């Protein structure tokens, strides 16, 4: 059981959690993630660690309430408990002094990109952050991002804030303006990461993407998180989650991520009315 110390709503349905987890706080490096179960019989879901505080013994992660489990999680407040948290999982992000590094976060991906952007800055890079959202209210962690970036570009689909357009267009603009870019990290929805890879490929800019696959155990035991990178099967939880974006087969990734969609819908729909009665019954039976 892990206690929630603090929560903060960053945007509609996007919530930040600070949770007690001393061992993980001590060990985690930028780019690593945890797997949690909100309750007994809950699903195991992966979440990137956004930050940690060793003195406090806490870690921070940011959750977008999209499915049953993330919505359940987002209904919790400070003082509540999370049933299980395991981590830090996965390999840390590649952190080197590349020169100029661009960190691109789409949607809640901004939160995932933040720790890596910070580490890239600490490693001596000139850091440019591009953060995308549907509209102004979805541009999250702006203050934190600004503090770790030499240049900061918010982008919105509807033009309500910053650059009017997609993060890929902003990236192209920077390249066209003659800026020398040595490294790009893309984190966010699959089409966005694929788009970024397509933009940087002709210029041979080293580009990494952090892949959000289906996961169960997160330790290499199930193979549910497998992806194809450079024609080879890799397990995102132990070989990743960060991979060379020019080598990732995004089509397969996007297909596999749709695997449980219809059922998750069922789970959510039936949940509210079904859960209370059946959960008790299920427990009594087994």
């Amino acid at each position, binding site marked *: 059981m892990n206690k929630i110390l603090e929560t903060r709503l960053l945007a509609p349905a996007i919530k930040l959690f600070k949770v007690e987890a001393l*061992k*993980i706080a001590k*060990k985690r490096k930028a780019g690593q993630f945890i797997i949690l*179960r909100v309750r007994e*019989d*809950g*699903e*195991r879901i992966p979440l990137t660690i956004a930050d940690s505080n060793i003195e406090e013994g806490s870690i921070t992660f940011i959750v977008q309430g999209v499915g*049953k*489990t993330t919505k359940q999680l987002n209904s919790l407040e400070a003082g509540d408990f999370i*049933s*299980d*948290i*395991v*981590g*830090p*999982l996965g390999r840390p992000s590649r952190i080197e002094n590349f020169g100029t590094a661009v960190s691109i976060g789409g949607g809640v991906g901004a939160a995932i990109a933040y720790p890596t952007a910070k580490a890239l800055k600490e490693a001596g890079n000139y850091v440019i952050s591009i953060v995308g959202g549907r509209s102004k209210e979805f541009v999250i962690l702006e203050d934190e991002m600004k503090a770790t970036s030499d240049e900061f570009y918010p982008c919105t689909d509807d033009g309500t804030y910053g650059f009017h357009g997609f993060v890929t267009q902003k990236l192209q603009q920077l390249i066209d303006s003659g800026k020398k870019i040595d490294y790009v990290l893309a984190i966010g929805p699959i089409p966005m990461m694929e788009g970024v890879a397509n933009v940087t490929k002709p210029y041979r800019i080293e580009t990494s993407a952090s892949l959000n696959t289906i996961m*169960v*155990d997160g*330790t*290499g*035991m*199930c*193979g*549910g998180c*497998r992806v*194809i990178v450079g024609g080879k*099967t890799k397990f995102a939880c*132990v070989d990743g989650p960060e991979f060379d974006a020019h080598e990732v*087969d995004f089509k*397969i990734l996007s*297909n*596999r991520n*749709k*695997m*449980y969609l219809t*059922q*998750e819908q*069922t*789970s959510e729909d*039936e*949940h509210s009315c*079904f*859960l209370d009665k*059946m*959960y008790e*019954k*299920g427990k009594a039976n*087994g």
Partner: protein
Amino acid sequence: MAELNNKERMRIKRHKMPKQEPEQRIKNFNEVNSGYTEELAVAEANRCIQCKNSPCIAGCPVSINIPKFIKLISERKHKEAAAVIKIDNALPAVCGRVCPQEEQCEKVCVLAKRGEPVAIGNLERWAADWERKNIGLQIPNKKPSTGKRIAVVGAGPAGISCAGDLAQMGHKVTVFEALHSTGGVLIYGIPEFRLPKKIVNIEIEALAKMGVEFITNCVIGLTETVDELLERFDAVFIGVGAGLPYFMNIPGEHLNGVYSANEFLTRVNLMKAYTFPIADTPMFDVKNKVVAVFGGGNTAMDAVRTSLRLGAKRAMVIYRRTEAEMPARIEEIKHAKEEGVEFCLLAAPTEFIGNENGWLSSARLQKMKLGEADSSGRRRPVPIEGDVEDIAIQTAIIAIGNGSNPIIHNTTPDLNVNKWGNILVEKDSMKTNKKGVFAGGDIVTGGATVILAMGAGRTAAKSINNYLNNPDAW
């Protein structure tokens, strides 16, 4: 009953295990075998002729005194029978259910030559179940505390048996487990209908009562390293199992609907997906689908029989050799057949083919024939040129074995492993090359059996005890 003579004993026919009928059992996840009644157990125990040289003991990987416990059952001294088994086997209720007895004790039983061997496994199960149901698991006496601390990594059979023995010796044991539940394959792999989870949990509770501490959600290598454990503990035992599923590396393996058996079974067993949406973990709906499982071991049988219970329209096992080469327990193959599982032998997939939505729609099979024996002594399957067939399936489950998980050796670079990543140990002591670190179970042998993993845990416990008494003699 008057004492029987050997002739009379040998005339008694082996007693069948009572079980749920196939039509009934494929509709539920309850245990298939219901266990002997006392009368059946005593009658079966009466078949044993108490051989002087008792080959069965030599056939048992942990040398249980088989004739002794069987005699006690025949005298209705079930508590004493259970105690005899537990001298050598920490998990008799588990082993009575899942050991491949036909390859071990029952294979060499004297009666096997003249008909059917004594049902040693069924009797082991009887004694263990009797104890649990009638007097509760007996907690063994502990030696006075030695003040020594041992870390056990992995709560599977190897780790559990090592922890239990060390606790009895008076040491303070902490078990670290990566998952949220303890039990290893017994919990996430072997299904409820073969091994009820309750039995495993009661065994683990008994260890907790003996003072063993369990820390779940802790991946050694990531949450804490082996070297960090060595700073806090006097010795470390690594029993992390063989948990990295092999794939076949054929085209289409990434289609939706293609699973590793580990993923399929974990979703069903550990995450209780069969109660979905009560439990939150979804499972690709196999209801009314055609399911093919590739492989011939216990894992393949567990997966195919699980898919039947989840409502598959047809469920089949596809194996590249013949039934004789299948590594699964004979009972599991028999049960699978009774339940209507189809066996497609001497066939290997070369490709998975998908529909326009990226879901599996068929598998291309290459037909095989048996050629020369390979290094394992089994005849090697060779393709029959041109004999290829496509079969329509919607779910494929790959159960061709597991490699070793790299997390421990990646984070403990000075630990010696072989080219497959299995940890190298001294056979009699389970010592690794790293001082104070021992290992055993599937991480050493590659995927094997529950009893071999337990035996290794037990050997390691003795050796750890010796080491703690004399650390300079590493």
